[in-house]
């Protein structure tokens, strides 16, 4: 897997509050083209919310989001989300549609591809994640790992410039995590721009180009995996790492 038409992503000074609960308090995240940024941190630190703000599933109160260097806050949010693929912890496949229909739905309805062309492209994507033989199954009949790979295929079919992974392996049985992580590693090596919210410290350390540690709605530390994992500067990161490693 390579030659993605990927782009850079930048979030600057993102603020978001739900009522009096300040979830994000001035977040900066810079993801150069073709790199993988992993975001780690304790539950409730705002990692998943940050992803949803960057594709405008949730509108930020303040701050800017730049895709390929251009602000996207004035654009139609539906257009923006077509350029950013997203994979969820709970897969969120459409249970009333077959596997291949899950992948082809957006191609035919949004990209306006003819049915047979959308189907062919969907089959191609399923082949890339090794699940062509499950094309006519319902998502409910697949294992969690297979469902997540279909979800990745569904996102990739739209040829996104950036991919978001929101704890993509957290809901999987341990033996199924590997296959999904291998697929994510392939994407990363293939030059996809990725933001990966994860509890998989191995992936974060070995695959990502930068690691960002969030806690309490702020970025506490950011840098290369080596910097953060071998020489954490703050007590908060030291404490977090000693808890999870």
């Amino acid at each position, binding site marked *: 897997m390579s030659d993605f038409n990927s782009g850079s992503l930048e979030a600057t000074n993102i603020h978001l509050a739900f009522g009096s609960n300040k979830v994000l308090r001035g977040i900066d995240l810079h993801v150069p083209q073709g790199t993988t940024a992993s975001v780690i941190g304790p539950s409730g630190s705002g990692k998943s919310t940050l992803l949803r703000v960057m594709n405008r599933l949730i509108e930020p109160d303040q701050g800017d989001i730049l895709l390929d260097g251009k602000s996207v806050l004035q654009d139609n949010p*539906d257009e923006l989300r077509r350029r950013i693929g*997203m994979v969820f912890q709970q897969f969120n*496949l*459409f249970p009333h549609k077959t596997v291949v229909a899950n992948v082809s739905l957006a191609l035919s*309805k949004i990209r306006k591809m003819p049915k047979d062309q959308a189907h062919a492209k969907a089959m191609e994507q399923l082949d890339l994640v090794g699940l062509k033989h499950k094309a006519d199954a319902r998502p409910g009949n697949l294992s969690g790992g297979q469902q997540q790979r279909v979800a990745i295929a569904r*996102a990739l079919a*739209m040829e996104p410039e950036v991919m978001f992974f929101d704890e993509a392996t957290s809901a999987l049985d341990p033996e199924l995590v590997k296959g999904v992580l291998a697929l994510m590693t392939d994407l990363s090596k293939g030059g996809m721009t990725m933001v990966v919210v994860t509890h998989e410290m191995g992936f974060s350390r070995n695959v990502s180009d930068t690691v960002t540690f969030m806690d309490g709605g702020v970025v506490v530390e950011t840098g290369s995996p080596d910097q953060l994992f071998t020489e954490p500067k703050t007590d908060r990161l030291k404490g977090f790492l000693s808890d999870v490693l």
Partner: protein
Amino acid sequence: MEVLDQLVKTFFDWEAMGQVIPEMFAVGLANTLILAISSGILGCILGMILAVMGISRNPIPRWIARVYTDVFRGLPAILVILLIGLGFGPIVRILTGSTNPYPLGIAALTLMAAAYIGEIFRSGIQSVEKGQLEASRALGFSYNSSMILVVIPQGIRRVLPALVNQLIGLIKESSLIFTLGLLASQREIFQIGQDQAANTGNLSPLVAAGLFYLCLTIPLTHLVNFMDKRMRDGKPVKIEPDEAAAVVGKGA
């Protein structure tokens, strides 16, 4: 023994039943089904509109749907049928020249069914996990497209048993249309039984009507139970040999 004879003669006079059953098959059954099915279909359409209004992000349609539902769920069926049927009858006659009570009867049944069906659809749609809407929107679908393509179809599937229950209710409520005055060819199952019972002073024709209703409603009730069970347990799946074996050792 005299009492028993009397009871059998009152309720199960086969001769009296035999006289009405052909008429019930030829005229009554079709009319009952026309009333129930057409108001069921129209009720589903109006109910879906109410459901979508009920979950709207705009408070005005939400409020309209709320008031409508409260009113039509809160009134006795016979009162709505009389008010609509008798109240609008003259207007329909002036406009179209028709005195057929069916359109207004169906309208009254539809208005009531829609209030219930709207609530059924709304609860089904709202039971769909939030992640479905989120995933659809993340792909780039608008809110409306997401609802139409992803959320509403799943919501409808979940409430199919409840919809069949509504159809059962409509089959029974269609009997109230007799209050609007029916010509011989417009009579549905109940009216045919009722007329014959009045003419002969014997209740057996009404018992025959009851049997007709049960032949329609009991299979539907079991269909609901079957659908409910299928949704809870999923399609019957083939048990893997080792799983079947595990059950054997469970009690030990």
